[in-house]
């Protein structure tokens, strides 16, 4: 991703930042703080970047109206906030708006008025990084994900929403953190996820109005689906077969299962297989070969790698 910005009237780049798209948790974060001040402008900038993520936080005040140009090249998801208030007001920022967007590439120009103090915040997140933060199948962003797959510019919420106190607080934690190194990275990621979550939640709350509970019939079907998986974990049905057995459409089963049990069907199957494997290996002292068969992994190698992925150690390492 290439991100650059300038004030149109001054025609000088404020910054040009090249951010790699890939999600790489080992790459350090870079932070820059700068102040621009002359007779008509005052800007305090904070920038943070790492592979897959760029954050800009700008506090600005102009003596005359100007235009800010921001350009992003490359596929990205942005979380944007603007807070504003009259410059002579001592009160906190009373007005705000925010949104989440998916942009295949974009150039925008915002007008900033004279005598108004603005705080502009944007997190530019590469698609890869975004999908590492929020799982593809998360219900929070279901419709948004659908639009992203089409590759067209889309806003999460049709109209911008007002920022809540929680969102403001999370942004200030992101910006003011004094942490460094690995912990700064953890901090940044967790706060970015939190911010996105608050944004999703506010939008979903607004659009859903009355959230519906599962009907008794659906609950019975979902419980039955779970029972089937548990009873036949050595030879489980495909999701299509499972859906047919509980008389649901495959897409409804997938969606409802995830919402009801907080895990996908696939994750659930992995969980119960691994829990069983744990008991067979540790308590019943069975051989790896036998456990692989009993938990439905045809080949011992498949079992060993699934086991290692789940527990972080391979089954062979347990017998020492």
């Amino acid at each position: 991703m290439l991100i650059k910005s300038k004030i149109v009237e001054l025609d000088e780049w404020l910054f040009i930042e090249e951010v790699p798209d890939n999600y790489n948790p080992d790459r350090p974060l870079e932070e820059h703080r700068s102040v621009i001040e002359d007779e008509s402008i005052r800007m305090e900038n904070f920038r943070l970047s790492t592979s897959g993520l760029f954050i800009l936080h700008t506090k600005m005040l102009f003596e005359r109206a100007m235009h800010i140009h921001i350009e992003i090249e490359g596929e990205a998801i942005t979380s944007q906030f603007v807070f504003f208030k009259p410059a002579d007001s001592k009160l906190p920022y009373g007005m705000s708006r925010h949104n989440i967007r998916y942009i295949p590439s974009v150039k925008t120009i915002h007008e900033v008025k004279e005598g108004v103090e603005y705080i502009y915040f944007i997190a530019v997140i590469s698609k890869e990084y975004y999908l590492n933060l929020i799982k593809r199948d998360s219900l929070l962003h279901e419709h948004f994900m659908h639009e992203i797959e089409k590759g067209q510019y889309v806003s999460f919420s049709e109209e911008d929403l007002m920022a809540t106190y929680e969102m403001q607080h999370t942004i200030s934690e992101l910006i003011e953190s004094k942490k460094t190194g690995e912990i700064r990275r953890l901090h940044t990621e967790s706060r970015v996820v939190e911010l996105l979550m608050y944004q999703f939640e506010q939008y979903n709350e607004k659009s859903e109005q009355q959230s519906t509970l599962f009907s008794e019939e659906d609950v019975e079907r979902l419980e039955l689906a779970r029972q089937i998986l548990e009873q036949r974990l050595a030879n489980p049905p495909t999701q299509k077969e499972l859906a047919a057995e509980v008389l649901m459409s495959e897409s409804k089963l997938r969606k409802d299962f995830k919402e009801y049990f907080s895990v996908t069907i696939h994750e659930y199957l992995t969980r119960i297989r691994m829990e069983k494997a744990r008991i067979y290996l540790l308590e019943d002292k069975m051989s790896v070969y036998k456990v692989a068969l009993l938990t439905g992994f045809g080949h011992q190698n498949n079992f060993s790698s699934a086991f290692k992925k789940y527990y972080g150690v391979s089954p062979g390492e347990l017998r020492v």
Partner: protein
Amino acid sequence: MLRIEKLNYEVKGRKLLRDVSLHVRKGEIVALLGSNGAGKSTLMRLLSGDQKPSSGRISFNGRSLVEQDGRDLARCRALLTQQQQMSLAFKVREIVLMGRYPHFKSVPREQDLAIVDEVMELCGVLDFSDRVYMSLSGGEQQRVQLARVLAQVWDNPDSLLLLDEPISALDMHYQQKVLAIAKALSRKGYMVVLVVHDLNFAANYADRIVMLKHGRKLFDGTPIEVLNTKNIYTVFSVEAQVEMNPKTLRPYVRLEEMLLDEQSIMNVI
């Protein structure tokens, strides 16, 4: 089976719980984790039926919790709360016997008395059963309250046992013992939901861990699925290393030392 769907709880416009959904099955022990004020105790009180949710549904053994008769509910659901005020000079045995009140009319039956003895023995409070509750140490009082709660549902393995910080005042031996009791009961069929602060206790004793933050459920899964450096930081803002204990296949969490920057204690001197 305990089923919680889209639970919201609001007090004076403040949302203490948001959209929490959760299931506990018969025979399962679930640990609730989260920092102070995350909503754990609020959730526990809603699960006990003491407070009603603003919206959402809780159903317990197939029936809506709010529709159940108080006395019936008292025989199959017991809650140990964090604070126990006791201003009268009750003796230990009298308090434990209170757990049996939903089961007899005016005079305790033989089996009620037998249960009281049994749970007092288990919780290590039998030796001071005739002492006045208020004269006991904090840890001893906590064990007495636990005995009362256990007495309440001792003869009904279809029960729900809600333990809000049951080991906060206990020494190491009883911390382990109380969690072992909770786990053993779950293996007999009880549904157990407990709040603990020690991540390793949760990892060792719970079948599932649910992590709350700001009234929201953020993570829900087996210990190995949810206890990792990132989730722990997200929920508690502490740095931790997580290793796997190959003997138990449960995660082991090691906390890093927390350093304060100098400014935060500048005003002390």
